[in-house]
């Protein structure tokens, strides 16, 4: 049974630049125009970085400064080969950061909550890291039995990559694990499985 009205599922709002920030860093798991993912960048006086995942080895993550119109500070853009590449670079950046950074992440839930977890571990407050969903609804699923995370789940049932159990994907979401809970669907009567539906396109 898919419990659909569980309240731990995050609700997202559109991103908007936090005027209290002294430096802003916007992260997107796909190439998207900056103005489409966040409001308030036009008049931003504080330095702003925009990092995207280009999903190709042809990019090298070199910063590209770009003059902004009017009084706004320049935007520094970087393109990464994959989300892992971006997160690795982010961990170095967060280790050097001081008070005043505002972090914004947009993309699939697995990506944005990985960013939120790194931010938390680096000491950022929840009010200093903002998330918004974009793209596929596919999920990361944490197997409650063997603790393996299976990624890219689009269906109501998923086979655990760790223990092979057929997991029902509950709507229960853990920000700590950046994943939804998966529970064996046929634990009571092995082999008795409900029909598989595509529910997270």
């Amino acid at each position, binding site marked *: 049974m898919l419990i659909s009205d569980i309240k*731990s599922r995050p609700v997202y709002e559109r991103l908007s630049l936090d005027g209290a920030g002294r430096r802003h860093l916007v992260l997107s798991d796909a190439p998207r125009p900056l103005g489409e993912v966040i409001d308030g960048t036009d008049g931003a006086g504080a330095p702003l970085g925009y990092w995207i995942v280009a999903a190709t080895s042809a990019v090298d993550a070199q910063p590209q400064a770009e003059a902004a119109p009017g009084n706004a500070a320049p935007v520094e853009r970087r393109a990464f080969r994959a989300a892992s590449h971006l997160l690795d670079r982010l961990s170095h950046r967060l280790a050097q950061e001081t008070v005043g950074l505002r972090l914004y992440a947009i993309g699939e839930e697995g990506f944005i909550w990985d960013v939120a977890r790194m931010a938390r571990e680096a000491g950022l407050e929840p009010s200093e890291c903002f998330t918004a969903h974009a793209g596929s609804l596919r999920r990361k699923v944490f197997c*409650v*039995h063997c603790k393996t995370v299976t990624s890219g789940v689009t269906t109501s049932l998923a086979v655990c990559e760790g223990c092979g159990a057929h997991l029902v994907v509950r709507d229960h979401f853990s920000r700590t694990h950046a994943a939804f809970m998966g529970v064996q669907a046929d634990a009571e009567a092995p082999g008795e499985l409900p029909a598989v539906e595509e529910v997270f396109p």
Partner: protein
Amino acid sequence: MTIQFKPDETFRDDFRYSNSDAAVLRFPFPFPEDAYMYSVNIEPHVPGGATPAFDNPFDVDEHYVAECRERAQVLEQDPSRCKVLPHMMAAQWDTLELLMESLATSYPAHFTLTREGTSWTWENRPLGIRDSFTFGDASTLPLPPFEYITRQAQGDFTLQDQRDDNLFIDAGMVTTQADWSLDFDVGMSFHQWHGPVPLAHQKGVFDRALKFLLRLQYGAPVRRLNWTMTVNPRLDTSPENYPQWGPDRTTLTAENIGQKLHLRVELQSLFRLPRSNAILFGIRCYLCSIEDLARVELWGKRLHRVLRDLHPEIADYKGTTRFREMAVAYLAPFDDGAELPAGTAPRQSTLPPAALPVER
């Protein structure tokens, strides 16, 4: 008072577990009315209630020694059943102090706490433990303070940190749970960890409960009862081990359901802690077979009515779908349909050997 412990009991495999007549009569039966629906149902946790299970801040009964051994077994399999986030050290010591003080006061025949400044000595005679340590210095205890003391108590415990007008489940010892995972839920806010409960969100139960708990005062603990049903006297009905206990639900028959199906009641208590301002949440689990419960006339009749008329979504969430009708059929012969007094006290001081069918 000296308690006769039953150290050979088991809560898995051969299920060597039973309630003495006295243990049945002290069961914290959770249904004051013939129908059940979610409510906040919180009352002051003061000594005294419908049965002696409410007489002390932390109830110890005949299953104490066996339950502590079961906890140790679960932790050996899966240490992540005990998790404490790093900022919870003050709350760990608060917990240790509250449990030691309470147990020593309630059960002086079994537990002794000697305090001289920060030099403390703790004696737990049923478990054969005697440790001297410095209060506030974790290096002087064999285990971190929260794990040390909750290994010596019945029932699960969680610690809720209070910040941003919310409660966060930032620590826990959870080995006797009704299908929820501390490892998954740790760090969640109040509404997040209650996410999977049906109906209650829409009724505003959690909004009201959170508002109430944020104002919980030191020295004024509160309690409530919660319940579910468990096949076999199994304490570890965790989601982690669902593949191990889930199949139990398919083993019930009309012949064995009276002995195998247990009403599982949680006596939940909430204490504001003095140093950390955190809340200690005790989830004390009681198991009683429906065969034994029916020996208390009022309880057998009422349980029959509650299960018969249970809201389908609650019946499903509590995992009773496969066997509810069978349980209702088992209990029906003991219910004459007569009007029952409100309340949960057993209203009898002895038990017949078995419940007798009544005339309708």
